[in-house]
C-alpha cells in the first residue's frame, strides 16, 4: 500500500489493485462511514454580502478619517510658519529704535522706559532705543522738545546743531533750521556747541542763531511756554517767529517787503490763529491778510 493511501483514496488516485486491497481491509467500513458522515457536515453560516458591506463601511470611515487629518496637518504647518514669523517680527521690532514724530499743530507726551517725560512740540521727531535704556540714555531729536529727566545715568540729547547732556533735570531743546536753543528749568545742563561746552544753570537759556551764540539769558518760568499752548520769544529774528507760527497753526506763511531779521520779543497763542497773528503783526508794525490756509505778511507803508 503506497504512502498516504487514505488521502489518495479520497482523491480517487488508488490503482484498481490497491483499492481492492483497501476495501477488503477491516478498517475500510469505518473510513467509509467517516467520509459519509463528514459529507453532511456544515460550517457555521456566513453572510458574504453582509460582511462585504461591513468591510466597505470601514473603508468609508477610514477614508473620511484621512481627509480629516490632512487639513489639520496643513493647518499645523501654517500655524508653525505664522508662529516663526511672529516671533521673528517680535524680535526684529523689539531691536528697532523707537521713533516718535509729530505733525504741524500737534503735540505729544512720551514716557521713556525710566519714567523720564518728554513733550514733543509740533513738527518734531524723536528717536531712542528701548534696549539697554537704563544704561545708555541717548535720544536724538529733530525739532523741539521739553525733557523732564528722571535721576540716573547721563542723559544725552543729540541734535544736528549740538549735544545736550544732563543727569536729572528739566530742560527744553529746540533745534530748527539755523536756530538752536536750550533752556534749563531745573538742575544743570551741559551743552556742546561747535566743540565748546557750556554749563547751563537752572533758569538760563542757550541760544544760537545761524551758528552764532547769541544770548545767555535768564528765564523766569519753570516750564517752556509752549507746553501751555503759547510760544514765547525774546529778541529773536522775525523769520524764526514766523516759522514757529507756521508749525503751530499749520498755516503757510508768506512775506512781502519785510525785513525778517528784525528782532521780535513777545508771545503768541498756539490755539487761536487770529489772536496769534495780531500778537505778531502789531508789535512789529506789519500787516497781514489771512486767506484759508495761507497768510501773507506785508509792510505797512
Amino acid at each position, binding site marked *: 500500500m503506497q504512502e498516504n493511501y*487514505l*488521502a489518495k483514496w479520497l482523491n480517487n488516485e488508488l490503482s484498481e489493485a490497491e483499492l481492492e486491497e483497501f476495501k477488503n481491509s477491516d478498517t475500510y467500513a469505518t473510513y467509509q462511514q*467517516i*467520509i459519509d458522515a*463528514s459529507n453532511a457536515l456544515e460550517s*457555521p453560516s456566513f453572510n458574504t454580502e453582509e460582511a462585504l458591506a461591513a468591510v466597505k463601511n470601514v473603508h468609508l470611515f477610514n477614508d473620511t478619517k484621512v481627509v480629516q487629518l490632512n487639513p489639520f496637518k496643513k493647518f499645523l504647518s501654517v500655524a508653525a510658519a505664522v508662529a516663526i514669523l511672529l516671533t521673528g517680527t517680535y524680535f526684529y521690532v523689539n531691536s528697532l529704535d523707537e521713533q516718535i514724530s509729530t505733525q504741524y499743530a500737534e503735540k505729544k507726551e512720551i514716557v521713556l522706559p525710566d519714567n523720564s517725560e518728554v513733550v514733543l512740540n509740533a513738527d518734531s521727531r524723536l528717536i531712542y532705543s528701548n534696549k539697554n535704556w537704563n544704561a545708555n540714555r541717548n535720544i536724538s531729536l529733530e525739532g523741539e522738545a521739553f525733557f523732564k529727566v528722571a535721576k540716573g545715568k547721563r542723559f544725552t540729547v543729540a541734535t544736528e546743531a549740538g549735544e545736550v547732556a544732563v543727569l536729572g533735570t528739566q530742560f527744553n531743546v529746540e533745534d530748527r533750521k539755523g536756530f538752536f536753543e536750550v533752556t534749563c528749568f531745573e538742575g544743570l545742563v551741559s551743552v556742546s556747541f561747535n566743540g565748546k561746552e557750556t554749563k547751563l544753570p537752572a533758569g538760563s537759556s542757550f541760544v544760537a542763531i545761524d551758528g552764532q551764540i547769541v544770548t545767555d539769558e535768564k528765564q523766569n518760568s519753570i516750564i517752556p511756554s509752549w507746553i501751555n499752548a503759547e510760544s514765547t520769544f525774546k529778541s529773536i529774528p522775525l523769520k524764526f517767529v514766523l516759522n514757529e507760527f507756521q508749525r503751530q497753526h499749520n498755516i503757510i506763511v508768506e512775506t512781502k517787503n519785510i525785513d525778517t531779521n528784525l528782532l521780535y520779543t513777545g508771545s503768541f497763542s498756539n490755539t487761536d490763529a487770529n489772536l496769534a497773528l495780531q500778537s505778531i503783526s502789531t508789535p512789529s508794525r506789519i500787516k497781514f491778510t489771512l486767506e484759508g490756509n495761507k497768510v501773507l505778511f506785508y509792510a505797512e507803508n
Partner: protein
Amino acid sequence: MKIKNEDNICNDKVFSEIFKANSKTIYNYIYYKFGNEEKSYDAVQEAFVKLWENCAKVSPAKAKSYVYTVANNLYLNVIKAEKVRLKYADKTLKTTHETPEFLMEESEFKAKLDHALNNLPDNQRITFLLNRIDGKKYKEIAALEGVSVKAIEKRMHLALKSLREKIDGI
C-alpha cells in the same frame, strides 16, 4: 498616480469579487482553527480592510495569499482554541425509512466523530475540514498553508487514520 486598471484591487468591483471568492473560506479556515465564530468574522473583516488599505501595493494575483496571511497572523498565539462545533445537514433526516436503532447508532457515530475532530491537531483538522466541507483540493490547501501538496496528503492521511482510531476506540 495610481494605475488606472480594471485589475487594480482599489477598483470596487475587483475588490468585491475577491471578497466573494475568498471570505467564506477564510472564515471557515479561522473557525476550524479556533472554533470561535466571532473571532473568525473579525479576522475576515481585518484581513479585507488591510487589503483595501494596501490595494495599490498588492497585485490581484497576490490578494488571496495576502488576506490569508493577515487573517492567519491576526490571532497567532493570542487566543486559545475552543471546541469546534459543526452542524450536520438535515438531508439525512429526509430518508427516515431507517430503523430507530440505525438512527440512534448514526447519531452516536456523529457524536464520536465530533469528539474525534476536536482532538485532532489544528493543521490536520483544518486540512480535513477544508477538503470535506469546502471541497478544497489538496493543491489549494497546500497554497493556503504554504506547504507542499505531499505535506497536505500526509495531514489528510493522518487525520483520517486518527479519526478512525478514535471512533473504533483503539
